[in-house]
Structures are given as structure tokens and as C-alpha cells.
């Protein structure tokens, strides 16, 4: 129990030095108000032992010190920015101690077709900051080739560079061409990972797209890159480069448009190029009749263009080649398919013959129209034999069109919008990239997944606008991250983190705030999504649009906390009806905003974690946990570190304690199907917090002003700290958890809205516009800093996490950026690690992306940060080993992984994806139960459970382990 009744000292932090300033924090600025605060504190402490006069002296001296600091503020800020110019690496480090930051893992798959290696053994997926090579056999990450995309010095640019295309080299299949929008072109050997450091650079305004073809140059097959680059706002050009031209930066200009094409595709060894600009297609055919091509400069194309009925979002070419009499190859005919923004698919059969001889524009060519999709077609592809089309979009349905009969086949209810479809080189499988940051390989015969790669699903700041936004819609997708990612970790399972996510990026960012009805359980050690559970209302099988075309908004999970033993999870979700529905409900002088607020649904839910399969089961749902005349926002939920108890704080100014009790029905204890006792959660105590006005001088605060607050239990669970109040003055109340009595109230520890409160031993850390570390025992502020960024967005994205193991805490905040108000693309964050007792930061680290969540690593002295690029960073004290996945290549395990030993053959296929949707009880219309065809399906975490059950010296006998493993593989896979 923290002793609170010790004599108080009122001295403010007495030692402060100039070193502590960082890009997001500055030494606390003492304003005149501070004087009054100090005097208040003196008044409070007068009966106590400390002489007041001495305190005054101390205060005076510190004030004078800080005022000089404050004057230096501008200088310091520029210093902070200067620090950031060291840009070649992704990070800027200013280490003062042993803390270090790992390389990031994960990222978000880009809207670029995944690439099969020619033998179909590997799948190359383009992420926002890396290329990742996965084995299709066991879904394991083989290699991660990190690309330094973001430059830290480009802080003021609104559009930051991003990868626009990655194409397999046509002549050397172990090479990959990757184009970045700022003109950098990487030539990577994906089998070894070489080439990431030495990009070619071409001088362009912006690269829009790129394709690679292998062209016969001097009777040698060489890669020629066709790069679509932006010229002016409304014009673009195609330039061809080969390796030589890339070195000299002088490509061959092939065509210039006075429009602005976005898509570029080529086929048949460069004999055909297709570029799509909004509603026009440009087709270029190679003119090199008869003479051999000696260099890139000899490439000549004849371009035709014609209008298409709709905005093109995707296209696929299917050339049929024939051998000429002379032994050369020429195109016999070309079939082209385009997918459009309004849902139609147009098929142009034998296009070349229909093109007029001259490049006249606007000649109508009649395509065949296939219309099933309601919204934009995100991807359409020809099957290998050309008899089928495969298309997908926001309906989350994979559609197979049989072209001869017009019959459609469906693979419905996938987990998110289908972004990309790729047909494998042999045509035996499809790779799908879904919007929930996952990719899967489906076998064409059975339509069952054989490979599944699922990344962290948090929202990212995307580089390209969605294909949906080409057409004006009644909603607008969100282009900023306005709410932090809600994450937590299970204290009993350190390798897993729980993230609140939505049904894919596009589906979840349609409302005012992102809707996040799902929990994704993400395993950091294997770096795979383990499962997803709905914890708020969601229905992936129903249409996600109203008949008016507005998106249906799902609830947003705002808080989440595990109980100390990891058996219970408390979650808060919020939903309010969209204002457009509420026009008829207006009465009197109410605004739609108020009416919507009245109809808010805020639920506090308690979930029981199943010990066996970690599934969540809803135990209690509290409809209006905090209410006045309407449901009140729940500001924070904290978990008791000693017992199964939660505390919640709402805007009604009440702290409620929640504890489990045996469930009774009509006075009888109710039991589950196996006779086990059922429990239910209920409010065991409610403590009304004192309003600031009641404390000392009566400051009238209208009840309508927004309140903020946060909760933290002391380490022994005996005391709950509740910081709550309007931004004009929040108060920290110290509540005895045993009796519910308010032991003490401490005003003036915060400035502005409360963003977080944490307690470590006797220190209380309060994050508001100031970062204050306050010692409860000695009743003094140990040190405090002021945050530079105080905007609304920054308020949301400021994080505080405490690691009790290392007695340290981390604060992450966005770095102020004068050129943008909201946290959009290009915003950066800074993370500062403090040791509780030391005022000097242990680590100051700038991150190239906004950090959306920070959480303490379970059972180790570090932190885990998730950024707006869906990457995970591990921040550890040196000596600690981050529990993060290493790609197989880094472990030198690739060979053994590809050797078909039974254990390594743990095909992740059905299992992982089944688990992912286990809540929805996997079922596909097209799939049949023939498990016997498949090999044993074992999720890696099941193996991990066996092998990581105990430390090596305490392991079960080897026979037992063998039996366990054998039983895993020998049993029929159970459908979960």
C-alpha cells in the first residue's frame, strides 16, 4: 500500500537541465499560473512539517532557470529539427543509454499485384516499406528486403514517396524491379536480398507506374523498363529504359500524353503497351518491323487511343502469339479486359484488328459488358486458358466469369475487399491480396487456401487514393488517422498482442471515426495474425452499404484491458447513428449532433478468455455503464494488478469498480453445459469524483464542457488514481480501492486535457499538455516537461506506456509540423523513454511514421510500438532479446524449410484462415469437405505451445513431446 499520509514537501523539481529537450517535449514552461499553483500547494501543506519559505526559494530559483529555458525555446526547436536531417537511415537516434530500437517488422501490403516466382514456390509481396518473400508451401516469411522509402528530411512534404510498382524481371527471374514515386528504381535480387542500398535514380516529377518486358536487343534478351511518369498536372509520358539507360538516366521517350494515365501494362515482350487514363485507353504497338532492335533508342511504337465507357480502375491483357514464317514471333490477336469504377467489366476481344489504322481518337469500339459488381472493380484478370475472368472488389466476393456461357461462380464473404488478383504462372492457383492486409493463395481446383499471410491490420495512412474514390460517393473516406490504435497484450501470453481493427482499411475508414469491431490477435514471435474475434457488432456477410449508397458504420472499440491473470478482457465500444439518418427526429432546437449523441450506444463488455483456444466469450454486457440523461463516454478502463477487477471512468465523473460474481438465475447459481460455475460482472462500487469547483475556489464549469480523464491502479492494487476534469483544471483523486473512500485529491498536476495516467511504485505519471512525474509519498513533482504539439490530433495520438519491470515509461507524440493541421501522410512521431527516477530521457527516437500505439512488452523490460505504416517496432533495453520474428533467411534455415521434412511441412493453409474466421464458423459455398486430400494442417502456434511449454531444462521427456507433435499431425483437422 502506498503510504499517502507522509509529510509533504512542496518543492517543485529542483534540478532541471537544458539537455532534456526533444522534438516533441520541452522542459516545462512555467507560466505565472504556476506561481499560484505553488502557493496553493503551500497552503495545502501548511499544517505539515516543511517550512514554506524554503519552498518559495526553491520555486524561485527553478522558475528563473526555466524562464531562460523558455526563452531558448525557438532555438531548441530548430535544434530538434536539425537533428532530423540525418536522413539516410529510417531513424534518427540520440541514445543516451542502453536502450535500442529494433528494425521494424511488418508493414502494409500495397495495392500492387503480388508476384509468384516462376516455380510458384515463393510469393513476393510488396509492402509499404519492404518487399517480403513468403514460401507458398508453409506461409512462412523467407526474406524481408527493407527499402528505405521514407526520408526523414522530407518533413514538410505532404505527399511522401511510395512504391508504385514492383515487377519481376522478365529476363532474369530472380530479380525484381521496384519503382518508387520519387524516381528511385531498385533492381533487387529477391533470392539474396541484394540491391536494396543502390537504387537507380531517374529525374522525374513523379513515377506513376512501371512495367518491365524482356526485349530482344542485339539478339539478347534484356529487361526494358517502361516507366509512366508525370509531366505536368495533366500530361504524362512513357519512357523506356534499359540497364544502361538507367545508369545514364537517359531513357527513350516513347509517347507523351496530354492526359494523365495512371495505369501502364505491357505484354508480349514489349510488343504491346496499354496505358489507361480515366476514360481513355492508349494502345501502343511496336513498329520495329523487320529490323532488329540494337538499343532502347530503336524502340518505336504506334499509339492508338479510344474512349471507354467508364473510369478504368484495372486492366489485364491477354495476347495470343504466333510464329511468323521467318521464325519471329508476332501478336496474333489481343484480348483486353478492363474493370471500371462503377462496377462494370468490359471485354475487348481481338482488339488490335478493331483499331483503326491511324491514331484517331474517339472511335467507338463495342466491348462486351459484364456487370455484377456494385462498386468499383478492384482487380480483374484473365485465367490462364482465357476462358474465365476473375474479378473482385469491395463486395468481398471473388467472381469467376465463364466467358462462353456468361455463367458466374462466386467465392463469397471473404474477410475484406479484394484488392489484387494474380493468376500463378502455371495457372493452378490464384493469389489474392485483401484489404485487411492479408494475402492468400487459392488453388483453382478446390478454391481452398493453400497459403495465408496475414499482417497487422491497423489503419495506415495510404499513399494512393482508393479505387472507390474515383467516383464521387455520398461518403468520404478518411485520409488521416484520428484515433489511436487500441492495443493491449495478454499478461499470460507475452508473444501475442491484441489490436482493435476493422474489416479492412477501406471498410473501416468510412465514418467520422474508424469503425473497429474486431480484435485481431497478432503473434509477434511468428509475425502472423492468429485469429480475429468480433467484439462489437459486425456482419461480414451482409451488404455494407445502405440503399442510398452510404456506408454502414460499425461500432468502434475505444478501450480494452486484460485482467491481471489474463482470463478476462474488458472492452468498451461506441456507436452513434450517422447524422444523416436523424433529420426526422429533430425536435425543438436540438441539432442533429445532439440527437445523435442521445442515441449513442456505449457498451462495456466483459469477455472470458478460453484457456484452451484463446477464444473470447461474452460474459456480461453493460449497456449504460456511465450515464446521466444519456449514455456517457467511458474515458478509461483500468485493470487491477492484483485481483480480477476493473475500474472505469466516465464523463459523468464517477469511477465504477467492476468485479465478477457467480451468476444467479432466480436465486439459483447457474451453470454451464459442463456444470461449471458461470460468472457475471457487475458494478461493485461507484465513487463520485469531486469536481474541481468544489475543491477550492468555486470555479463555475458548465456541465457541458468536455471532460477528459484517465485511471491507473497502483502497483499493489490498493489505490486507484483517477485524473478527471475539464481541460481548465483536472484533478487527480486518490481512491482507496478497499473502501472506496477518496483519500486525497491533488490538483494542478496537469494542463489541458488528460491524455494518460500511470503509476509506478510511488511515482504517478500524468500526461496532459505537460508530462508530469509526481511522487506520491513525498508529495512533490519530480520533474515535468511540456509537450510542444498541442493540437487536437496530437492529443489523440499521444501515448503513455509504463513498463513496471524496468521501471521505465515511454511517451510517444507526434512532432509538430507547421504545414499540416491533421496527422496525414508524412507526419512523424517521437518516442522518449524515461526511467521513472531520472529526469534525463533514456532514449529519444524519431520515427518516420506517426506512432499509433505504444504498449509495454509483457515479461520483459521493453516497449512495443505500432506505427501508421502498420509496422511494429520493438524498443528494448540492450541485452534483452526482442521476441520478434526473424525471417527464415536471417536464421539460415531456408534450406531446411524447403526440404520437405514433415514438421517443417506445417502447411498453414486452411487452418490459419479458418481460425481467422472462427467466429463466423468458416463455410464456403464452393468448398467441399475433403480433408484427406490435404496434408496435415497445423498452425505454428500449436507447435509453439508444445515446444515452449517449459524452459529447456524442464521439458517433458522427448517421447511425450514426440507424441504430442505426432498427434497434432495425425488427427483430422477439426473445424473450429
Amino acid at each position, binding site marked *: 500500500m502506498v503510504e499517502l499520509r507522509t509529510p509533504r514537501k512542496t518543492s517543485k523539481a529542483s534540478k532541471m537541465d537544458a539537455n532534456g529537450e526533444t522534438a516533441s517535449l520541452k522542459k516545462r514552461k512555467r507560466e505565472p499560473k504556476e506561481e499560484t499553483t505553488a502557493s496553493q500547494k503551500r497552503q495545502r501543506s501548511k499544517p505539515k512539517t516543511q517550512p514554506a519559505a524554503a519552498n518559495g526559494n526553491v520555486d524561485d530559483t527553478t522558475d528563473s532557470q526555466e524562464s531562460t529555458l523558455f526563452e531558448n525555446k525557438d532555438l531548441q526547436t530548430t535544434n530538434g529539427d536539425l537533428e532530423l536531417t540525418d536522413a539516410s537511415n529510417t531513424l534518427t537516434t540520440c541514445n543516451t543509454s542502453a536502450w535500442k530500437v529494433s528494425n521494424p517488422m511488418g508493414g502494409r501490403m500495397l495495392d500492387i499485384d503480388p508476384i509468384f516466382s516462376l516455380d510458384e514456390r515463393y510469393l513476393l509481396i510488396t509492402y509499404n516499406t519492404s518487399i517480403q518473400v513468403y514460401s507458398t508451401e508453409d506461409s512462412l516469411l523467407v526474406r524481408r528486403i527493407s527499402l528505405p522509402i521514407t526520408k526523414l528530411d522530407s518533413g514538410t512534404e505532404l505527399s511522401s514517396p511510395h512504391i508504385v510498382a514492383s515487377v519481376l524481371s522478365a529476363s532474369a527471374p530472380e530479380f525484381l524491379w521496384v519503382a518508387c514515386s520519387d524516381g528511385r528504381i531498385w533492381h533487387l535480387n529477391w533470392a539474396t536480398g541484394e540491391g536494396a542500398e543502390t537504387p537507380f535514380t531517374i529525374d522525374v516529377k513523379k513515377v506513376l507506374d512501371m512495367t518491365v518486358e524482356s526485349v530482344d536487343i542485339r539478339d539478347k534478351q534484356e529487361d526494358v523498363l517502361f516507366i509512366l511518369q508525370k509531366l505536368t498536372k495533366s500530361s504524362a509520358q512513357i519512357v523506356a529504359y534499359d540497364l544502361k539507360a538507367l545508369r545514364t538516366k537517359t531513357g527513350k521517350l516513347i509517347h507523351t500524353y496530354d492526359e494523365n494515365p495512371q495505369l501502364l501494362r505491357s505484354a508480349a515482350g514489349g510488343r504491346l503497351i496499354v496505358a489507361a487514363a480515366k476514360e481513355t485507353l492508349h494502345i501502343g504497338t511496336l513498329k520495329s518491323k523487320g529490323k532488329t532492335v540494337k538499343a532502347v533508342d530503336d524502340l518505336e511504337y504506334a499509339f492508338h487511343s479510344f474512349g471507354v465507357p467508364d473510369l478504368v480502375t484495372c486492366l489485364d491483357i491477354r495476347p495470343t502469339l504466333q510464329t511468323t514464317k521467318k521464325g519471329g514471333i508476332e501478336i496474333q490477336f489481343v484480348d483486353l479486359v478492363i474493370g471500371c469504377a462503377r462496377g462494370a467489366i468490359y471485354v475487348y476481344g481481338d482488339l488490335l484488328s478493331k483499331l483503326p489504322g491511324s491514331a484517331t481518337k474517339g472511335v467507338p469500339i463495342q466491348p462486351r459488358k459484364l456487370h455484377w459488381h456494385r462498386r468499383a472493380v478492384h482487380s480483374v484478370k484473365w485465367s490462364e486458358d482465357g476462358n474465365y475472368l476473375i474479378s473482385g472488389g469491395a463486395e468481398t466476393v471473388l467472381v469467376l466469369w465463364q466467358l462462353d456461357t456468361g455463367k458466374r461462380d462466386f467465392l463469397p464473404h471473404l474477410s475484406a475487399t479484394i484488392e489484387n488478383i494474380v493468376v500463378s504462372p502455371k495457372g493452378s492457383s490464384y493469389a489474392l491480396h485483401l484489404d485487411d492486409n492479408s494475402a492468400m493463395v487459392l488453388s483453382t481446383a478446390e478454391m481452398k487456401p493453400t497459403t495465408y499471410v496475414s499482417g497487422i491490420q491497423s489503419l495506415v495512412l495510404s499513399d494512393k487514393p482508393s479505387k472507390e474514390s474515383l467516383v464521387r460517393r455520398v461518403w468520404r473516406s478518411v485520409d488521416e488517422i484520428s484515433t489511436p490504435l487500441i492495443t493491449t497484450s495478454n499478461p499470460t501470453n507475452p508473444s501475442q498482442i491484441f489490436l482493435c481493427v476493422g474489416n479492412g482499411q477501406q471498410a473501416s475508414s468510412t465514418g467520422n471515426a474508424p469503425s473497429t469491431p474486431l480484435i485481431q490477435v497478432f503473434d509477434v514471435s511468428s509475425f502472423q495474425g492468429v485469429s480475429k474475434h468480433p467484439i462489437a457488432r459486425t456482419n461480414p456477410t451482409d451488404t455494407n452499404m445502405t440503399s442510398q449508397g452510404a456506408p454502414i458504420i460499425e461500432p468502434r472499440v475505444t478501450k480494452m484491458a486484460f485482467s491481471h491473470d489474463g482470463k478476462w478482457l474488458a472492452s468498451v465500444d461506441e456507436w452513434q447513428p450517422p447524422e444523416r439518418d436523424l433529420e*426526422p427526429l429533430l425536435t425543438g432546437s436540438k441539432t442533429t449532433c445532439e440527437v445523435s449523441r442521445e442515441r449513442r450506444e456505449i457498451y462495456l463488455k466483459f469477455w472470458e478468455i478460453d484457456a484452451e483456444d484463446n477464444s473470447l466469450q461474452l460474459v456480461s454486457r453493460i449497456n449504460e455503464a456511465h450515464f446521466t440523461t444519456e449514455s456517457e463516454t467511458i474515458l478509461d478502463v483500468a485493470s487491477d494488478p492484483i485481483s480480477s477487477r476493473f475500474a472505469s471512468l466516465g464523463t459523468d465523473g464517477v469511477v465504477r469498480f467492476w468485479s465478477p460474481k457467480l451468476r444467479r438465475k432466480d436465486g439459483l447459481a447457474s451453470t454451464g453445459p459442463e456444470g461449471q460455475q458461470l460468472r457475471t460482472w457487475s458494478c461493485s462500487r461507484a465513487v463520485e469524483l469531486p469536481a474541481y469547483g468544489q475543491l477550492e475556489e468555486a470555479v463555475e464549469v458548465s456541465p457541458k464542457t468536455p471532460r477528459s480523464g484517465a485511471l491507473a491502479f497502483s502497483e499493489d492494487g490498493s489505490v486507484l488514481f483517477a485524473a478527471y476534469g475539464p481541460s481548465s483544471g483536472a484533478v487527480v483523486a486518490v481512491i482507496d480501492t478497499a473502501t472506496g473512500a477518496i483519500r486525497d485529491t491533488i490538483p494542478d498536476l496537469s494542463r489541458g486535457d488528460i491524455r494518460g495516467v500511470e503509476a509506478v511504485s510511488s511515482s504517478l505519471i500524468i500526461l496532459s499538455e505537460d508530462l508530469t512525474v509526481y511522487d506520491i509519498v513525498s508529495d512533490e513533482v519530480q520533474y515535468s516537461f511540456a509537450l510542444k504539439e498541442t493540437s487536437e490530433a496530437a492529443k489523440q495520438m499521444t501515448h503513455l506506456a509504463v513498463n513496471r519491470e524496468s521501471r521505465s515509461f515511454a511517451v510517444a507524440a507526434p512532432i509538430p509540423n507547421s504545414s499540416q493541421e491533421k496527422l496525414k501522410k508524412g507526419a512523424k512521431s517521437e518516442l522518449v523513454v524515461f526511467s521513472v527516477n531520472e529526469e534525463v530521457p533514456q532514449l529519444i527516437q524519431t520515427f518516420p511514421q506517426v506512432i499509433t500505439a505504444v504498449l509495454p512488452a509483457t515479461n520483459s523490460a521493453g516497449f512495443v510500438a505500432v506505427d501508421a505504416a502498420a509496422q511494429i517496432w520493438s524498443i528494448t533495453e540492450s541485452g534483452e532479446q526482442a521476441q520478434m520474428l526473424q525471417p527464415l533467411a536471417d536464421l539460415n534455415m531456408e534450406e531446411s524449410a524447403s526440404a520437405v521434412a514433415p514438421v517443417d511441412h506445417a502447411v498453414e493453409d486452411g487452418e490459419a484462415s479458418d481460425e481467422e474466421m472462427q467466429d463466423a464458423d468458416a463455410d464456403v459455398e464452393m468448398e467441399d*469437405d475433403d480433408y484427406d486430400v490435404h496434408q496435415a494442417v497445423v498452425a505454428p502456434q500449436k507447435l509453439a505451445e508444445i515446444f515452449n511449454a517449459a524452459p529447456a531444462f524442464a521439458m517433458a521427456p522427448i517421447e511425450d513431446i514426440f507424441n504430442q507433435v505426432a498427434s497434432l499431425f495425425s488427427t483430422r483437422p477439426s473445424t473450429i
Partner: protein
Amino acid sequence: MAAEVQPLATLKLPTVVSPITAEQRYWKSFKNQKSHTSTAAWPISHISFPGSTNGSAASHSLVAAAKLNDLFAVTSGPRVDIFSIRKRELLKTIGRFDSQAHSGEIRADGRVLVAGEDSGKMQVFDVGTGTRAVILKTWHVHKQPVWVTKWSPTELTTLMSCSDDKTVRLWDLPSNAPSRLFAGHQDYVRSGAFMPDRNNLLVSGSYDSTVRVWDARAPAGSVLTFKHADPIEEVLPLPGGTTLLAATGSAISVLDLVAAKPLRLITNHQKTVTSLSLASNGRRVVSGSLDGHVKVFETTNWNVVSGSKYPSPILSLSVIAAGSGHEDRHLAVGMQSGVLSLRTRLSGATAEKARARAVEDALMVSGASSKLAKIDSAKAKRKRNAASNKSMALLGENVDVIIPTDAPNSAGGRKRRVKLKPWQRDFREGRYAACLDAVLDLSSPEYQPVTALSVLVALRHRSALREALEGRDEVTVLPLLKWVIKYISDPRYATVCVDVAFQLFDIYSEYVGGSSELADQFAVMTGKVSREVEKAQMAIITNGMVQSLMIGGAEA
């Protein structure tokens, strides 16, 4: 991989004060009442059936085993009637008593019966043979009426008796004298029992308001005495042998024998509690009282979980269990008026059949032949399926591969897909108006208010409420209005009803002039809402008054 289509989840409303609980449903399922009036309407003083036997007795003979647990005895006036549990019919009447008979008890093996009588005689009859019961043994040791005769649950030849001569005696069947005599009660001893699982312990309750526990091994008097305020009418040891119930006046006291202290006094009855019985394998206790009430208690916290009222004071009751699982079969209640009421609970397959028959009867009466045909065809199909499965199973001996005829639902672990109801299909496919019409149809047999509420809430979540309400004519909008009027006063439905009402006003108010029906319904709704508003105002006023009182009280 792909998610399965789930039907719309029904909302879970907060439980309100008096829904029918599962327990009440259970006890309500004891219906199918059969009344049996005793000869000359003698009051039914005792009902008993042989309790569970402990193995050894069960395997005496095939006949006995067949008859086992099929008999129960009802004592009324100078008669003991023996009934069949299965058939609920009177099998035999034993009338060879000189005076009022008491406590006719059948032994656990179902062969002999013992009863006491007012004259002080105790007689043992042979139950099995002939119509006229043979007297096997007679004791005439008690000089006052013998009120209790009971067989030991463990030893077939041991029995006890309690008499108005203030004594409790222990008997051995072959001998003529009691093997033990327990003296100590100061008044009539009207109840007694063997303690289960404790061979030598007996318990008795007397009109001297004491419950005494006797030990056959201890030489002296009672080993434990509980003094009550009122005479003891009945004692009932609970299984386990550590807890004892005693009916004392209108109360039932719960006594803990291990801690030797009373645990609780249950005071749910208004008049003297006359009988207690175990039910549901000892997890419930049923009590009957002179106030005509039967109450069912759970045995952990002794809350009343169910109850029912009978027309006459209850003198005796028993919950008769039968079958392998000792399920509650009959609730037998004997009354002052001489009526024995037998209420029976159908279980398992029997209940299923009875239900199906009831449905068919109802349809036959109403003349809906098409539905009947449907039921018939469904039944025939079930039968065919069963038959074909059976034939396959029989084939199993000789063939190599058996292809099961129906889906591998249980074996494969894969659930069969739930078929969506029409309204669920409408909802899923966006025909919201049709869906709403279906669930709001008050006359539909499947109508449930909570389904309607779930659909309305889901429509609000899907921003489709207005779409579902729009575009109706006079005929189709009226059911909506009526539903809203019906439920707008229910606090659980109010918020949704208010939203719907707002929308309806917004859409249809312009047509009120043209339709008197619509105008009427709107007027009715206004009336209902204003009444609710008045009630709310009254509540607020009352609240204010109470609060001022509370403040006054706190100051004082």
C-alpha cells in the same frame, strides 16, 4: 475462410420482474392432472413411495425388479391404497384396519407394506399377492396411536415407529419386541425418519416442539435436541445426512447436524406446514401446507423457485420419482377434502409425441387440412429417412463402404447450415419493408415482440429504418402504428418506438387529412404518450418528495 451467413441475432433484453423462469416452467410442466377421491372422502394423510434402493435389494427377483418403483401407497382414513406409478391407477386397497391408519409405507423392494393405526397397532402386509392383502406381522406394543412407521433405507428388516405415547421405537421384523426404545419426547411424536447414509441415526419431531436425533448405538436419550416454537409436524433429512428440515408450525427450519445449530427458518407458508418431500434427486424440496399452497425450494439458499395452489388444505404430498434417472414423475398431493391430486410430467419421447398430437388435434379441429398434409408428409419423410438409415446400418455387416445418407453433421464436426427464415432472408437481401411486415404481424404464430425489436434496432444500425417505413399505403402502415402504440410504454422498447413514431409522423402526417383510420391511430398514440408523460411527471414529483424526506431524515 469465408464467413458463414448468420441469421440476425435476437436482442437480449434486460430481465424484468416476473418472467416465467425455467424452474417455474419445469414445475408447470407437471400437468395432466388426475384426481382420485378416497372412499368416503377421508382426508389423505400420507403418501409414500419406496425410495431409491441400494443395489442389494434390487436384484432379488425379476418380478420384484419389474415391480420395483412402480408402487406408491396412499393412506386415507382406515385404508391404505396402493397405486401404480406408471399407470396412475389404483391397484389394491388394504382395509384391514380397526381405526384410522397412518403412514402406509412400502419397503424398498416393493414387497411388503407397514402401517400404523390409531389403536396403537402396527401391521406389516404382503403387497404382492392376491387382491386381499395378507397380514404378515402385527405388533401391539404402542398403547397410543402410531403415527409413523418407516422402513430403514439400508436394512430390509429394520423399521422405526413413532407414537403418541411419546416414544420412538426401533423394530426388527422377526422379533416381537422392539429392539430399541427411545424415550425423551414430552408430547406426541408425530414425525420421524431414518437419517440417510448414517445407519444408526434416527430423527423424530414431536408436539413438544423439539426435534431429537437418536443414535441406536448410544445407550441414553437423544444425542441432539433442537427446540422450536411450534409443534413439529414433519421432519425431512436431506441426502448426505448432515442437514435436516423440520416443519414447525407455519415455518420450516433448516438444521445443521454437524454444527448442531439451526441454519435458517423458512417462513413462506401462511399456515401449518404439514408435509415435506424431496424432489429432483434431492436438489429441491417441496412443501405442502394447510393454506393449500405447494412451494418448491432450492436447497442452497432456500429460495422459493415455484409454487402452486390447491383447493383444499394439504395434508400430505410427495414428488414421486421413477425411472433409471429418478426423474420427477408425479406430484402427488393429498388434501383434507379426500382428493388425491396426481400431476404428471411427461418426459422425453412421450412429451414429444404428446405435443405432436396436440398440434394435429388443433389443426384437425380448425380444419386446416393442407397443413395437416404437410405435417403428415414431413412425418413420412422422417420415417423414410430413419428407415433408410437403418437399412444402411444393417448392411454394414457385409459391405465395404457405407455412404451415410445424411450430411456428416455430427461426425464431421460441421454444423448444418441454419436455414434462414423468410423474414431473415428478406432482411439480408434488403427487402426491409417486407421483413418488417413479417415480424410486426401480431397475428402470426411466430410473432415475438423481441424479434420485432431486434429487427427495428438492426434497421437503425443499418440506417434503413426510414427505407423500411416509407412507401406504404393506409393498409400497410396501420400495423406499424398499432405495434408502436402497443409497445411505446414499455421502457425496453420505448427508444426504438419513439424513433419509429417520429419517422412515421414525418412520412405520413400529410396524409392524415385523407385517412380517418390513420388519424385515429395517431390520436390513440398521442393519448398513450401523454398518459406516459403524466406518469413520468408523477414519478418525478414523487421522487422529489422522497428526496426531500431523505434529506430531512439525514439532517435529523
